[in-house]
């Protein structure tokens, strides 16, 4: 039995970031990279299922990116993934979420897992579409924003709860194999122990080319994408009026604001 978990190394921006010369992305020099927060939860869900299963289950993480992504993949290995796969080719540069989904779907075809998990979205680009697009390319059943899951590897179906707007939930039964996008809070992700971090450092990361997953350059990059970034810029944002002074002075002004509100209401 196999669960494939698609993960992304996301970028947060350093305080004084700059836009790249061509105006179409941020200069990567200002990236602070980490494993996407949602993916921490989907990995944990897979590892929990593996630990609860009567039969052996293999948890495989897959990501698309340069060797900088290895750091996040090692983090996943330290948190319980058995194997890691990374796919990269220079042609992948400029891919949107759909082109990335095409690569993930190709890896899923090669690995033939019983289930594919992805995060609901990434914290940097927030497309909320990669996992579901991969499902379409595989022809698999799919569901988004899963906040509770009952699944036994190898079973013909799984039952989950979909988290809706406003906090209500819907229970759904889905045929397997399926693609589920996993929501924050579905579990409590574990911390990697020092021992497991050391062990993960020596585990191999399988690096695949496009040809290894039966894709060509035309399947990825701008050619394989459904959108193209035209321009990236820093918006003029509304700015709060800053309350200056030391903590006591700032708190005194805040107290005034509270009293004004109460006075207006009285």
């Amino acid at each position, binding site marked *: 039995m196999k669960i494939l978990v698609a993960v992304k190394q996301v970028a947060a921006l350093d305080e004084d970031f700059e836009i790249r010369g061509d105006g179409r992305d941020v200069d990567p020099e200002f990236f602070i990279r980490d494993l996407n927060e949602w993916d921490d939860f989907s990995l944990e869900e897979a590892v929990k299922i593996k630990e609860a299963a009567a039969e052996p289950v293999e948890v495989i993480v897959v990501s698309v990116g340069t060797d900088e992504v290895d750091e996040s993949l090692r983090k996943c290995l330290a948190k319980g993934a058995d194997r890691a796969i990374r796919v990269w080719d220079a042609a992948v540069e400029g891919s949107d979420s759909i082109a990335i989904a095409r690569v993930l779907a190709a890896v899923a075809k090669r690995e033939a897992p019983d289930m594919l998990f992805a995060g609901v979205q990434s914290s940097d680009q*927030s497309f909320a579409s990669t996992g*579901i697009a991969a499902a379409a390319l595989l022809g698999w059943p799919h569901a*988004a924003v899963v906040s509770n899951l009952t699944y036994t590897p190898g079973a013909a179906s799984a039952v989950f709860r979909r*988290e809706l707007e406003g906090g209500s939930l819907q229970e*759904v039964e*889905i045929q397997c194999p399926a693609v589920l996008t996993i929501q924050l809070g579905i579990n409590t992700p574990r911390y990697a122990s020092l021992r497991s971090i050391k062990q993960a450092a020596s585990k191999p990361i399988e690096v695949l080319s496009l040809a290894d997953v039966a894709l060509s350059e035309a399947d990825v990059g701008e050619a394989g994408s459904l959108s193209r970034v035209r321009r990236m810029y820093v918006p003029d944002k*509304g700015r709060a009026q800053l309350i200056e002074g030391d903590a006591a002075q700032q708190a*005194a002004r805040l107290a005034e604001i509270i009293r004004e509100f*109460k006075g207006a209401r009285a």
Partner: protein
Amino acid sequence: MSGILIIAEQRRGELRPISLELLGAAASLRRDGDEVAVAILSDSPERFVKSLSVGGVDEIVTVRVGAPEFDPDTFESAVGALITRRSPDVVLVAHSVDSFGYAAALAARLGLGFATDVFNAERIDGELVATRGGYGQKVNVEVDFPGRSTVLLAIRGNVFKAPDQAATPRVTSFDAPPADNRAKGREFIELSAGDDVDMTAAEFILTVGRGIGEEAKVAQFRELADAVGATLGCSRPIADAGWLPKSRQVGQSGKTASACKLYIAMGVSGAIQHLAGMKHVTTIVAVNTDAEASIFSVAKYGIVGDIFEIADELRKLF
């Protein structure tokens, strides 16, 4: 063919408000001669005709499907058939939990131009350009769709204005092909309260976010909220960690601070999902150590500082 096709969204017999906001987005893309059609999918779609009869709608398309509620296969198949039949220039859906479940699949399968979480859409030199956020909303990203004859945009909520006048569009029906529904919806489950607070009715809310750092600190802010007369709320990570009940979570998947007049956010960075539940509040005061936190872009007043120090000082004054 041409024109704009909007996919309205309903849940449990209610039209979701974003359905009408999509008309605001359509208005900014509409060219002379373009028709705007709104499709509604339901097992009894006629019941939504009245609420969809508003300004800016030329046609309401009732699409009868097998099940009363959303499921991804039915929507993907029915909306796909509609697009194939009508070949619109633009298809607008809500950027919502339902569309997360099928829009990307549809776009990938049909090769549609595609962008999600779009908060601005316009035509620049005749080309459709959509704007979305990037890197945690720190930048705006303009995307275009070279070579795509149909573009599917998932539109962010609470951005575009719904039309306020009624109208009498023509009503047509569309027979959706039968779908192989592989993800069957069962019952809806309401959030069990955890406690009896009603965030939607609270006029004064003090919210704590990740900045409080540890569960032991919750008590201090609960006591502070009581002292100043505020209802204690929280952002998602606090509810997910179980430090406060889910019923106190403000945001997209939590509660909307509908009645709130004064909102104090302490240690809340301001993820877009949190802002969705509170950015409309007239007086927002944000306290955060990070001067770049996005909460400051929606706040009226900002305090860049340590939330514990501010909390201690504020407590002395009440």
